């Protein structure tokens, strides 16, 4: 079997006395949507930060396309084709939508005009065509999420890391964004997503990893994972109801 696009092996990270991630191992197959779920404070975002180069792991390795990328800085990873979005959206508030996306596009286009043209095209695809010259600060939450996606996409990634891209959206907005993610996958982009909206996880992902207290406690296809007693136990409390509701849906 060929090596997966991304392999994370036994990575650990602690902050002060807190073990945020403890020897976690997971992988993302090419062309698939992989989900990373877990209760609040499980260490998902830290794990993402290590994969995308924002945080250096204390131990373990990250491999991508057969190369060791452990501890490489984010901009190099972006150049290799790993793009990410942030849980709390981080638009360049003072720039217009077009300029925002162009920052991403510049990675593949040196010239300003080429980058702006590419940005315009992507903005249209992502449904931001009407707002090209608006400042990013003027966008709604849903608009900013789309912008975040568009910007990441403009770097022409092979692997897209989505950190709770659906959080903060209302159900109708979620219904709008889910097909967008599918479309991205259809372009041949592999996706790894952290998600709380279980409904979306169930419908989008092909493989799920469950992180709890810094450890991967389960993995497999979504249906199997959701039935796993360890997962239910990890989610017990405020998370359990959500999971069972999702399972029933």
């Amino acid at each position, binding site marked *: 079997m060929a090596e997966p696009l991304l392999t994370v092996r036994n990575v650990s990270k602690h902050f002060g006395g807190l073990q945020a991630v403890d020897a976690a191992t997971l992988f993302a197959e090419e062309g698939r949507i992989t989900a990373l779920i877990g209760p609040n404070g499980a260490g998902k975002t830290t794990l993402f930060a290590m994969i*995308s180069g*924002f945080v250096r792991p204390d131990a373990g390795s990250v491999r991508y396309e057969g190369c060791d990328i452990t501890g490489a*800085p*984010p*901009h*190099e990873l*972006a*150049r290799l084709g790993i*793009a*990410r*979005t*942030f849980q709390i959206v*981080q*638009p*360049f*508030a*003072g*720039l217009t939508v077009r*300029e925002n996306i*162009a*920052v*991403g596009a*510049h*990675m593949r*286009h*040196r*010239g*300003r005009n080429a*980058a702006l043209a590419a940005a315009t095209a992507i903005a249209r695809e992502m449904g931001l065509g009407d707002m090209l010259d608006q*400042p990013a*600060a*003027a966008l709604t939450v849903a608009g900013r999420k789309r912008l975040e996606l568009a*910007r*990441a996409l*403009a*770097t022409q990634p092979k692997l897209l890391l989505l950190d709770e891209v659906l959080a903060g959206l209302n159900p109708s907005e979620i219904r709008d964004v889910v097909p967008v993610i599918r479309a991205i996958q259809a372009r041949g982009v592999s996706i790894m997503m952290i998600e709380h909206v279980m409904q979306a996880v169930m419908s989008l992902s092909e493989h799920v990893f469950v992180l709890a207290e810094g450890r991967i406690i389960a993995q497999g296809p979504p249906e199997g994972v959701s039935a796993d007693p360890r997962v239910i136990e990890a989610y017990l409390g405020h998370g359990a109801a959500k999971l069972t509701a999702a399972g029933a849906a």
Partner: protein
Amino acid sequence: MRRLAMIVLVVAVLAAVPFTEASNAVLNFLVVALLIALAGQGWNVLGGYGGQYSFGHAAFFGTGAYVTAVLQVRYGVNAWLAFALGIAAGALVGAVIGALTFRSGLRGSYFALVTLAFAEVLRIVASVAPITGAGVGTLIKLDLRHEALQFQSRAVFYWAILGLVALSLVIAWAIEHSRFGAWLTAVRENEDAARALGVDATRVKLGAMTLSAAITAAAGCFYAQYFLFIDAGIAYGPWISVEALLTAIIGGAGTIFGPLFGALLVRLLGEAARLVTGDAPGLDLVIYGAALVLVVAFAPRGLMGIVADIRSAFRRPAPRPTAEAAGG
């Protein structure tokens, strides 16, 4: 391209001033204003486009001034060459300070403080080191020949500094129309997001700081060549750090013409204040300070922001003034 045409127009208008019967007093006033504008444009590259607020641009101004002066006086280097080397030395100091600070991840208040401290260290060193003439300062020999980069006519000096300012305007324009500029503004707006999009933030900031330092150093070189005397307080004193920042912010940080118009306005305000109050010591500076606070409070994009708002108000009644939206 329209902006580029604006640059040509503004520079052409300014270049015509000596052909009117403007007195040397006016020319001298404009020379100093343009000198400050140049220093301010240097600050603008790093602070305005890059969002890194330096409180110590004197470090670059002073290095430019001292290298220009000391090379001529002590080593007999040709003035033109000394001028160029002064700019290079300023850029080098910028690169070194940038490498140290950005690698340590200093931002915001920390960055402001550390730049201030570097400028102060240089000031103290310059006030005791024999090579700078220590406390006595360095005096460039009066030698009104073109080879010595000194001119009998104020007008020639004026055109020279205008040429440098014009170049700095073109640099600002190029920043706005390049990948480097896009990355730089992205870093200003949100460094983490920029890094995730493939921007090597440290390198971009370092590049901006080097360029910024070179431009401000050019202002320092010109100062030395125009006034022919510098000492530690003039070259590395906090006055130039403050003026560079002030003109850029008041004119409009992160805009092409901000520092130029800011410098002209600030200097005019100072003259006007002294005109109205006689020689009331300090009042002109009170006005500078007040202008800074007022601009930050009510016109966050400075003079250029006000101009833009007025223009857009006339062109189409925009439902949402962009300045507020961007500021929020």
